[in-house]
C-alpha cells in the first residue's frame, strides 16, 4: 500500500485529507508541523507528502527545501495544499521542488485529480 504523510497544523484538515486519501487506498501518517514532518520522513520515508505552507516551528517551504536536500533517499512526491493561492507562492513552491500544488479549499475531486497527474493513482 502506498504511504502518504499529511502535514498540516489543522487537525480538521488532517482528518478530512486522511479520509479522502484512505479512500484512495493510501496508508496515512500525520505531522502537525514541518519539523515533525522531517522526523517522520527520517523514520519512514513516505511515497507522497500532502503539505501545508503556514505552520508553527517549521513551515512547509522550509520542510520541502530540507527534504529535497536529503541525499541517498527515495524522494517522495510532494503536493502542496495551502491557502497561499498567488502566483508568487506557487512559483516558489515549484522552484523548491514541489510536484503539484492545491489551493485550499480542496475537495476529493481536486485531490484525486492532482494525485493522478503526478502518477500516484
Amino acid at each position, binding site marked *: 500500500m502506498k504511504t502518504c504523510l499529511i502535514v498540516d497544523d489543522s487537525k480538521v484538515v488532517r482528518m478530512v485529507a486522511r479520509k479522502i486519501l484512505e479512500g484512495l487506498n493510501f496508508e496515512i501518517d500525520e505531522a502537525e508541523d514541518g519539523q515533525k514532518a522531517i522526523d517522520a520522513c527520517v523514520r519512514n520515508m513516505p511515497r507522497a507528502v500532502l503539505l501545508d505552507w503556514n505552520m508553527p516551528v517549521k513551515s512547509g517551504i522550509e520542510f520541502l527545501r530540507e527534504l529535497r536536500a536529503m541525499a541517498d533517499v527515495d524522494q517522495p512526491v510532494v503536493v502542496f495544499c495551502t491557502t497561499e*493561492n498567488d*502566483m508568487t507562492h*506557487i512559483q516558489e513552491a515549484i522552484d523548491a521542488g514541489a510536484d*503539484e*500544488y492545491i489551493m485550499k479549499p480542496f475537495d476529493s*475531486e*481536486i485531490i484525486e*485529480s492532482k494525485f493522478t497527474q503526478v502518477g500516484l493513482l
Partner: protein
Amino acid sequence: MNVTDFEMIAQLLKTRSGLALSKDKAYLIESRLNPVARKWNFAGFDELAQAIRAGKDEALLVDVTEAMTTNESFFFRDQKPFDQFNELVLPHMLEHRAAKKTIRIWSAACSSGQEPYTLAMLLKENASKLAGWKVEIVATDLSQEILDKAKEGLYSQFEVQRGLPINLLVKYFKQTGDRWQIDAEIRKMVKFQQFNLLTNPSALGRFDVVFCRNVLIYFDPPTKTEVLGKLADLLADDGFLYLGGAETVLGMSDRFQLMPGQRGIYRLMSEDKAKATG
C-alpha cells in the same frame, strides 16, 4: 412538473439540439430552468412552461435550450486522449502534412473552452516542431452564452485545479482577483463559433482531427447515426475522431472503426475513404 410539460419541453430540446431527455432526467428540467424563469421574471416554472408552449419568443426558446444543453468541462479531461494526441496523432500529422504544413482541429461542443485550450497549450508546448506550420483550432458549441465565457478564458480556482498541471497554470495563466485567465496568445489560437451539430457542417471545412467527446451520449440512436455521418463527411481520409470513454460507433455507424489498441480514437473505414476519393 406534469407529464404534458415534460413532453412539450423534451420535444423542444429534441428538435432544436438533438438532446434526448428520458423521463428519469425530468428533475434536470426544473433545476436548470428555474434560473431561466427568474431571469425572465416569470412567477415560477408553470408560467415559464406556458410561455414556452406559446412559442412566441425566440430568445426565450434559445435560453431554455442553452440552459438544458450546457455541460461541464475541464482541462485535460481523462488525460489519456491528450497523451494519445501528443504521442500518436501529432507525430502522424507532422509526417503526413509536411508538404502543406497545415493542421485543422475541431472541438465540437466545446462548452466553456477547456478542451480547445488544452489542445492549444499542447500545441504551444510543441512549438519547436510546429515552426512554420498553420494550426487551426475551431471550437463550436450550441450555446452562445457559453461561447462568450469560453472566449474570455476566465476560470475559477476550482476549474483550474481539475486536470490542469500546476506548471501549465504558471506558464499560461494570469491571476485576476480570485480567478485565472488564460493568456491572450493561447486564446488567439482558438476560433470559437456557434454551431448546431444537427445542421450541415460543410461550411466548417475539412478537419484532420475531430474531438466530439461526451456529446453523443445525449442523443438518441438515429441522431447519433446522423451526427456520425456528418463527422465522417468532413474528416480527412487519414484523420482521427475522438469520442468520449462511454461512447461507441457500434451499431450507430459503419463509417468508422476503432483504432486498434487506442480506446476512444476512431478512423474512417477504408471503404469510406475509397468512396470519398472515388
